[in-house]
């Protein structure tokens, strides 16, 4: 046993049948997930599983985290457990790779933070997170047909094409701005909070099949009973706007709203205009 460590996934609000529902779950390294509860009133739980020490001791962990394949496997397992728990109760997702020497140490941390955890869970209760991304489809800027320019010199024709492309691009970004305003309005109508994420560009975003340039990447904390309205508004945010695509992902466990307000860069801190 001494070569096993306790990997923690999420603090959860305990609920009837939750322990039984947790039992079949498999987490990081295919390890069975169990629920540690606080010794007090049994209101909080910490979802954990036992992972091999040789992979999660400091040095090994540091090396593994740089290995995208290993990281992907752990990230997906971590996310899978949180997602499954989120179907049954309110979850407070922990940052990846929160590891304790044993279950007793993990339970101590749960009990030491119980007031804070309970407060966070109360805020997240009956809420889910939706991701909203806005893309500018780059092809839209180039697909615009140009007027045949028989009467122009090649140089003038080139300059005119460039101007036209530039003007189409400006129009597309203005349309994206308009879509962003509509999404924000939907958020004000339905959501409890919002955080901005960094826009996704680069290899991972391309690998995910994203088409176009991601210009807005936000997360909204939405009460369960407002999800329909929020999604309907978001679905219409790009109506009548050429070259702009709005994509909603979710529902997610409330990852982006797990940190206390003053550290999460919540709605108040993120009111700036979108790029």
């Amino acid at each position, binding site marked *: 046993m001494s070569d096993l460590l306790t990997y923690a996934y999420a603090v959860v*609000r305990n609920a009837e049948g939750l322990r039984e529902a947790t039992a079949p779950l498999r987490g990081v390294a295919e390890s069975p997930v169990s629920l540690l509860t606080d010794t007090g009133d049994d209101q909080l739980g910490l979802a954990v599983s036992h992972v091999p020490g040789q992979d999660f001791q400091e040095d090994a962990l540091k090396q593994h985290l740089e290995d995208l394949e290993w990281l992907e496997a752990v*990230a997906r397992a971590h996310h899978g457990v949180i997602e*499954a728990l989120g*179907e049954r109760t309110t979850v407070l997702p922990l940052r990846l790779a929160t590891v304790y020497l044993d279950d007793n140490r993990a339970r101590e941390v749960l009990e030491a933070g119980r007031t804070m955890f309970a407060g966070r869970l109360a805020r997240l209760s009956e809420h889910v997170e939706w991701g909203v991304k806005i893309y500018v489809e780059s092809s839209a800027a180039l697909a615009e047909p140009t007027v045949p320019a028989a009467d122009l010199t090649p140089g003038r024709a080139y300059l005119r094409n460039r101007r036209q492309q530039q003007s189409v691009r400006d129009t597309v970004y203005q349309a994206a701005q308009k879509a962003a305003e509509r999404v924000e309005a939907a958020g004000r109508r339905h959501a409890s909070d919002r955080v901005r994420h960094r826009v996704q560009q680069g290899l991972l*975003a391309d690998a995910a099949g994203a088409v176009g340039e991601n210009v807005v990447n936000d*997360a909204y904390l939405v009460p369960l009973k407002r*999800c329909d309205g929020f999604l309907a508004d978001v679905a219409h945010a790009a109506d009548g706007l050429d070259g702009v695509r709005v994509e909603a992902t979710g529902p*997610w466990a409330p990852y982006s709203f797990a*940190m206390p307000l003053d550290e999460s860069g919540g709605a108040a801190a993120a009111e700036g205009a979108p790029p």
Partner: protein
Amino acid sequence: MTEPLANRLGSYPSRSAPPYAQGSSANLADILERVLDKGIVIAGDIQINLLDIELLTIKLRLLVASVDKAKEMGIDWWEHDPSLSSRSRGEQSLAEENRRLRAEIDAIRQANALPEKEEAPQDTGRRRRGSARDE
């Protein structure tokens, strides 16, 4: 108060009928930005050096976020990291290695007072003027 979430999720529109249904199909970039950057941070027993995590996050951001923004922030080391850039294996690193080797050869020559017959005359002169300035 502890009504299971699954029951409440029954009111979802049909298109999201299976709640949290993204499962393995969820986009890795979306998952990583959440599990690495979001989620509550509580101290674990296994301490990971924060600097390392920051470095990891920066590396991932180069995959997830904009390379141009990283450059604006003065971060350009990926250009020298062979796992991230094909350029670093090309002429850049060769030129760098060439410079280093030349400097080493120069240092050895000076230390052992080797004859400099391979050097062009003006090069020799320049180095002599250089060492004279140093004195």
